[in-house]
């Protein structure tokens, strides 16, 4: 610790802190233009100059001068003020002073400081800067005439985002911020540069001229896309959202956002939203009143229940429903209808964290203290970009080592010390190979294994076959690379394994999670901050909907349905008997509908016809349903098949909570009044129950959460009264440091089965990877025009070598066919795609990648043919 005096105040600060940080700690404000706590000190603007007695009265920039013992600092004096005024005058020489129409006006650092220091006249005169304004870049507008060259955009893009799109070009007075050759932006469009810009040089095009900063009302809520759970502020003017900002206080994101969070909110105000209930009459969906629609739902469900029993009814809900809504939905099916047939897209994916993982989740903020990362089956910087930023910061600023295993050369592979390009679908063999190598080389953490785990011998036995040569044959990774990766991983003290789940990552999540947990345990990476497994669900409440029991075999908690006392407790609380046998999963529900055993389906926000594998099969199955209710924002392909469509409120129109991937419960606040006649999902569930003759209780989210807290031990301490913008970290996640204390639970190692990789066939030589792109999340983001202006439609990503062999050029139309279906799509040749595999994002309605996939197989094999003009 260092003691120093700032403005006659004794300040104690940690070693390595700068004067600015020490002053901030003591509550002394020093003005800055180029400093940001997320970035390394830069010392460009010289606004933060202070006097240090030991430096003989010389002015020194406080942001880049380390505090030393006994330093005596003055942050304000006549000389300092004069110097700061001069800096401002110099900055204002070329500045266009177009504050009246600059969108930063009102929250501009330069404007504030000019006002604060009373710089009303400028002693220096020169021509105003006359750079052309970049109007061509989507989403971000660049007007370098207003730039103060603080370099924050350049640094945030490099140090935090890792896109390195901006740089400073030219020298001296002609220095400016530019992309290479000054072309329009072609980057991740996260808008972090625009957000961090202290002046109006980089501005948000969506916000352009919409409102002045002081006119808007900010509502704090949570982003509705991925499971990072970024806290956002929606700025409202005249009842419309004009922009989204990252909430600096947000625990998950600390003010950062990605393209989806910053520019993706538009779907909420889309003109295509369904605003009235629709009931199918004489074969067409016609607008109806809520009474009619609810009655139709009640009659439809009742009829099926009476004819074929409650087991013929099933429910699929979206992983974007709030906790309260997911809870009410499964309660509606279990307590009112009497079936356990309830699932979300978890039936196809992210079963891992409910049944596979025995470790508490990692906290995002701890990722920055990790020294090893293993990123496997996770394009984290695209699916969960803000988590990706943290990995990037740890690697670039803190020197952590990164191992990336992915068939595609994903963004993180650029910074990785080890990149393993394995064959698609062989992650389990790879993880087991790593574990085997660590155990045979004796690199495991013996102390930890002996004290805190059990079953190591069984694990060793089951891993015997995963020798480097076996793994090489299975995954295509050379034995020496595997050994190197294993050594690298085992040499760390805090290692994080990052895995993603969701519709973009089909596969056996539970087994994968188990293998990852094994690897973390044998290396002692559990029970301390920044060590463990991070399992990232796809959607905003993927984790919460499992916790809320919107899955066939779990009750809220999540607690096992199979256990009698658990079931009895819920039966008592709900006043209804709960069936003991687990319900059907997504796949089984669709299969059941096809075979006729499922006759009625309630889809709450889920869009299986666009998001689930094997569209054709799903469509036939849904065609056979006697009754289909769809509760949606848009008239999706699923809604178009429905008998009744109930219009639901979007995330901006309701209160509630989401649980993110680190187990943090965060609060949504209503920003907009409901669109048209829409109602929140919670209210609709309660009204449907009432129409069925049962009472689900209040739909007030706070009251529902109180009920959840009383029934689910994990949510015991969650209460609306105490939820702040930082959210509430669920108890088992908060207790991650507890194991090791006396009486702590011992982790158990689970033996692992061999999963043989599938062999490619001659007919279908390519492996199809269906996944998410950086720009979209699920199918909802395709309704946001800003995002679509950057990524309007799906393209087939293919390796240059494969493309050459097939005589495919960029933007050629190709026909892709699998055993299940076929589609035509534009090709994009991209070097990061591994040979023998092609990639199609699944978000879009057309071409819909899921038409090619099959639910029965983990891997989809396809053939690709070039479409010539004549065949078109």
């Amino acid at each position, binding site marked *: 610790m260092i003691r120093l005096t700032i403005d006659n105040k004794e300040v104690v600060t940690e070693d390595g802190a700068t004067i600015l940080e020490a002053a901030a700690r003591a509550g002394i404000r020093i003005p800055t233009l180029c400093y940001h706590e997320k970035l390394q000190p830069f010392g460009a603007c010289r606004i933060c100059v202070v006097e240090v007695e030991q430096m003989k009265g010389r002015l020194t920039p406080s942001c880049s001068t380390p505090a030393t013992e006994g330093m005596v600092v003055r942050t304000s004096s006549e000389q300092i003020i004069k110097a700061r005024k001069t800096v401002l005058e110099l900055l204002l020489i070329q500045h266009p002073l177009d*504050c*009246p*129409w600059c969108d930063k*006006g009102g929250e501009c650092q330069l404007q504030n400081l000019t006002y604060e220091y009373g710089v009303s006249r400028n002693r220096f005169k020169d021509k105003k800067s006359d750079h052309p*304004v970049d*109007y061509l870049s989507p989403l971000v507008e660049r007007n370098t005439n207003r730039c103060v060259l603080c370099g924050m955009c350049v640094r945030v893009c490099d140090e935090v985002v890792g896109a390195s799109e901006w740089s400073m070009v030219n020298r001296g007075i002609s220095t400016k911020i530019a992309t290479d050759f000054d072309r329009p932006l072609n980057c991740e469009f996260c808008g972090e540069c625009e957000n961090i810009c202290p002046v109006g040089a980089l501005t948000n095009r969506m916000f*352009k*001229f*919409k*409102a*002045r900063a*002081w*006119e808007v009302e900010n509502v704090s809520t949570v982003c509705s896309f991925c499971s990072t759970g970024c806290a956002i502020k929606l700025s409202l003017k*005249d009842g419309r959202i004009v922009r989204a900002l990252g909430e600096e206080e947000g625990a998950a994101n600390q003010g950062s956002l990605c393209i989806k969070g910053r520019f993706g909110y538009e779907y909420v105000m889309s003109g295509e939203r369904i605003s009235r209930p629709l009931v199918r009459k004489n074969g067409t969906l016609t607008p109806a009143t809520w009474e009619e629609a609810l009655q139709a739902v009640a009659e439809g469900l009742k009829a099926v229940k009476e004819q074929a029993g409650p087991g013929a009814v099933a429910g699929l809900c979206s992983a974007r429903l709030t906790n309260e809504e997911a809870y009410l939905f499964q309660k509606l099916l279990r307590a009112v209808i009497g079936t356990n047939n309830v699932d979300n897209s978890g039936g196809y994916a992210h079963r891992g964290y409910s049944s596979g993982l025995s470790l508490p989740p990692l906290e995002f903020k701890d990722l920055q203290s990790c020294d090893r990362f293993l990123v496997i089956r996770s394009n984290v910087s695209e699916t969960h970009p803000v988590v990706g930023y943290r990995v990037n910061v740890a690697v670039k600023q803190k020197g952590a080592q990164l191992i990336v295993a992915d068939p595609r050369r994903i963004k993180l592979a650029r910074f990785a010390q080890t990149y393993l390009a394995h064959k698609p679908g062989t992650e389990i063999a790879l993880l087991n190979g790593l574990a085997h190598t660590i155990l045979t080389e004796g690199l495991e953490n013996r102390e930890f294994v002996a004290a805190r785990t059990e079953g190591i011998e069984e694990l060793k036995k089951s891993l015997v076959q995963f020798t480097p040569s076996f793994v090489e044959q299975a995954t295509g990774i050379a034995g020496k690379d595997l050994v190197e990766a294993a050594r690298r991983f085992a040499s760390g003290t805090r290692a994080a394994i990052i895995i993603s789940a969701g519709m973009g990552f089909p596969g056996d999540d539970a087994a994968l999670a188990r293998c990852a947990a094994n690897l973390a345990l044998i290396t002692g990476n559990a029970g301390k901050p920044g060590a463990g497994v991070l399992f990232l669900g796809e959607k905003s409440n993927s984790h919460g909907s499992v916790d809320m029991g919107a899955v066939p075999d779990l009750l809220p908690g999540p607690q096992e349905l199979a256990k009698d006392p658990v079931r009895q407790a819920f039966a008592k609380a709900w006043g209804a008997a709960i069936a003991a046998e687990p319900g059907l999963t997504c796949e089984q529900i669709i299969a059941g509908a096809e075979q006729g055993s499922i006759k009625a389906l309630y889809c709450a926000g889920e869009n299986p016809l666009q998001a689930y594998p094997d569209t054709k099969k799903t469509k036939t199955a849904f065609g056979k349903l006697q009754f289909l209710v769809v509760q949606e924002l848009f008239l999706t392909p699923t809604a178009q098949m429905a008998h009744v469509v109930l219009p639901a409120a979007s995330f901006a129109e309701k209160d509630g909570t989401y649980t993110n991937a680190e187990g943090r419960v965060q609060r949504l606040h209503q920003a907009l009044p409901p669109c048209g006649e829409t109602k929140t999902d919670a209210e609709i569930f309660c009204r449907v129950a009432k129409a069925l003759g049962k009472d689900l209780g209040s739909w007030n989210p706070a009251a529902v959460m109180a009920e959840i807290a009383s029934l689910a031990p994990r949510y015991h301490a969650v209460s609306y009264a105490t939820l702040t913008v930082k959210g509430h970290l669920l108890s088992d996640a908060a207790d991650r440091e507890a194991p090791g204390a006396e009486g702590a639970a011992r982790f158990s190692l689970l033996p692992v089965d061999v999963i043989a990789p599938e062999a490619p066939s001659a007919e279908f030589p390519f492996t199809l990877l269906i996944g998410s792109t950086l720009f979209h999340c699920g199918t909802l983001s395709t309704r946001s025009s800003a995002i679509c202006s950057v990524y309007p439609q799906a393209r087939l990503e293919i390796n240059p070598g494969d493309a050459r062999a097939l005589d495919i050029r960029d933007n050629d139309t190709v026909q892709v066919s699998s055993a299940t279906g076929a589609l035509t799509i534009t090709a994009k040749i991209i070097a990061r795609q591994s040979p023998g595999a092609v990639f199609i994002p699944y978000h879009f309605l057309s071409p819909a990648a899921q038409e090619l996939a099959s639910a029965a197989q983990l891997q989809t094999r396809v053939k690709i043919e070039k479409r010539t003009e004549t065949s078109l």
Partner: protein
Amino acid sequence: MLWPLLKGLSVTLKYFFTRPVTMKYPEQRWEAGPRWRGRQQLLWDEERGREKCVACCLCATVCPAQCIRVEGAENERHEKYPAVYEIDLNRCIFCGFCVEACPVSAIIMTGAYELAEYTRDGSIYGKEELLQEPQLPKGAERSTTFSLESRLSGK
């Protein structure tokens, strides 16, 4: 008893032979003084072929009666202009703060003081109306006889 009557009549007679202080309103109208704060007018920039207003919203911000609504938008030259500029004269208190706050001198107070309307909506002036100079109704004339100068000089 007669004396007070004559005294009163003398006043009457004095005014009988001076020029009248009233005028034939509405055929004749008072000319408002140069500092008169009547309804606002938005100015047109001939040189650039657009309204002077840049939709900075400072007028709307400073307005104590909150009667100004501005919606900015981008024109084809990428400039900011007011797509909507409304003043609700029902609420306006004619304080002139909007004129004072305007950084580009795009708004002035005019001499128009006859602002009565048959409906409340009629008193909400849009951008097109505000860009027009206030006009006298047909057939009406501004009184020169009753101009400000003549009032001040008392002739």
